């Protein structure tokens, strides 16, 4: 089984998010970048499924050379090889079109992504890939098991879970529950340096969206502290002042 995992390079979850002076660009100064936490889950499951010679795991990333440490991290965790499409990731449509083009040329049985990237939170790539390739896409899955030539999946739905089966090839976006993220060991880190990382040029695609500007949520007023002995006061304020109950 050939498995492809799409990975994203995102600001560390503890990073303070700031923008340049006219709020048109994310300020990356002093920000540590990491492998998107959801992609780590997808990668971990891919490695488990490929274990014991049952398959291969390729990671793919659309981005510039600055994301290579994150790609090497994925190789250290256990991917067999990596592809970087050398382009600035303009929007989800652009990124999906690039990856879909690569998949058409190379053929994969299973394509996994994280449920969303923790920076732009798009949750779009998996379903866009499915559409570009005319194959099923299942978004936000909690469980993935493979049997012979089909997979059984549990996905989250409003107020419950749906169990389904699907035949290969397909795309799925992974959420917590699919696998536990893996921490690279020393052997993985050493071998990651010599694993193949192919850099390919992008294809011509016109992005459909432009990120124009950013803003930070307005700060809240100061907190009203109440005594622990009068919760009735809280209930009253929630009713009369906040008007939420």
């Amino acid at each position, binding site marked *: 089984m050939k498995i492809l995992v799409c990975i994203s390079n995102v600001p560390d*979850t503890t990073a303070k*998010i700031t923008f340049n002076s006219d709020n048109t660009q994310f300020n990356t100064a002093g920000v540590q970048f990491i492998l998107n*936490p959801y992609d780590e889950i997808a990668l971990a499951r891919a490695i488990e499924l490929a274990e014991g010679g049952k398959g291969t795991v390729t990671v793919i990333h659309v981005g510039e050379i600055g994301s290579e440490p994150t790609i090497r991290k994925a190789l250290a965790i256990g991917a067999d090889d990596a592809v970087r499409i050398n382009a600035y990731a303009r929007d*989800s*449509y652009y990124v*999906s079109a690039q990856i879909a083009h690569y998949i058409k040329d190379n053929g994969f049985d299973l394509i996994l992504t994280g449920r969303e990237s*923790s*920076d*732009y*939170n798009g*949750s*779009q790539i998996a*379903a*866009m890939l*499915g*559409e570009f390739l*005319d*194959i*099923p*896409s*299942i*978004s936000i899955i909690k469980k993935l098991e493979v049997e012979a030539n089909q997979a059984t999946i549990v*996905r989250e*739905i*409003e*107020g*419950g*879970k*749906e*169990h*389904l*089966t699907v*035949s290969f090839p*397909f795309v799925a976006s992974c959420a*917590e529950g699919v696998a536990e993220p893996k921490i690279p060991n020393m052997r993985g880190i050493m071998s990651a340096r010599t694993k193949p990382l192919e850099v390919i040029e992008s294809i011509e695609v016109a*992005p*459909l*969206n*432009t*990120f*124009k500007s*950013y*803003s930070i*949520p307005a700060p*809240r*007023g100061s*907190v*009203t*502290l*109440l*005594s*622990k002995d009068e*919760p009735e006061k*809280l*209930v*009253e304020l*929630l009713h009369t002042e*906040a008007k*939420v*109950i």
Partner: protein
Amino acid sequence: MSVLVYVENADGKFKKSTFEVVSYAAAISELLKTELIAISIGDVNQDDLSNLGKYGAIKVLNVSTVKLKTFVNQAFASVIADAAKKENATVIVLANSFTGKGLSPRIAVKLKAGLVDAAVELPKIDHHTFTVKRTAFSGKAFATVELNSEIKVIALNPNSYQLKESGSSVKVEDFQPDFKESDFRTMVSEIVRSSDKIALPDAELVVSAGRGMKGPENWAMIEELASVLGAATACSKPVSDAGWRPHEEHVGQTGIAVSPNLYIAIGISGAIQHLAGVSSSKTIVVINKDPEAPFFKVADYGIIGDAFEILPKLIDAIKAYKAHS
């Protein structure tokens, strides 16, 4: 020209979030001086379909094909894109729900349309530009996105737009959609509903608890508080990581982002990753025995003290309030 809204149903009924999406789409159709058409897929009762008129739709395309009884995103995307073409829709609106997340990207690619998901405001439209504000960086920021394509797809976050009654009657038409056999390559074997609990992503009230609760055996109090309020339950990452609560309840940067009217945080210190997931809550109440807990800095109301002491009293106070209202 028209605006098309996909009206999601749960077991044949529309939820409040569906009417929010219709209200939002109606406001867009007003901005564009065009008509709002709704598309419903599955068996929805006639009263609910008629209600769509109240929120501004003038026509409902009703798809009740047996084959489309259970949700298959590939087929549903084909049906909605087909309706968009036939109705000459320039904007397609849906909910940014689990269903919407599986649908909107496929529709966008089919129509070569720019997609904004997690939208939180009405678009700003002038002669040359169409921009929409959405959440970004897991709730730590907002981004304003310009859509450059002729057709646009917008997925609206739950609890982001007020219900607005603007219209009156609606015409319900049967719609025979185009889809391909190859759209049905997934087979649903079972749907498991999580009892009668309120779904977290679109809950209006949320009671959330953290490690301060000391162990899963102490969650009865949290569940009771949620139940007297009619709230959904949630938790912090350490709690779901420890297996005290299911992953579906984990709110924060790597979990679910919520935007309820009221978020009550009990025994959660307020790490930056957790705060990111709750920042768009309208009112935040924090109960924590540590006066230095960072969560107090973003709270509207706070009580410093032991949750085990405060919760029983708070539950009684809410019961008393409910009894009188």
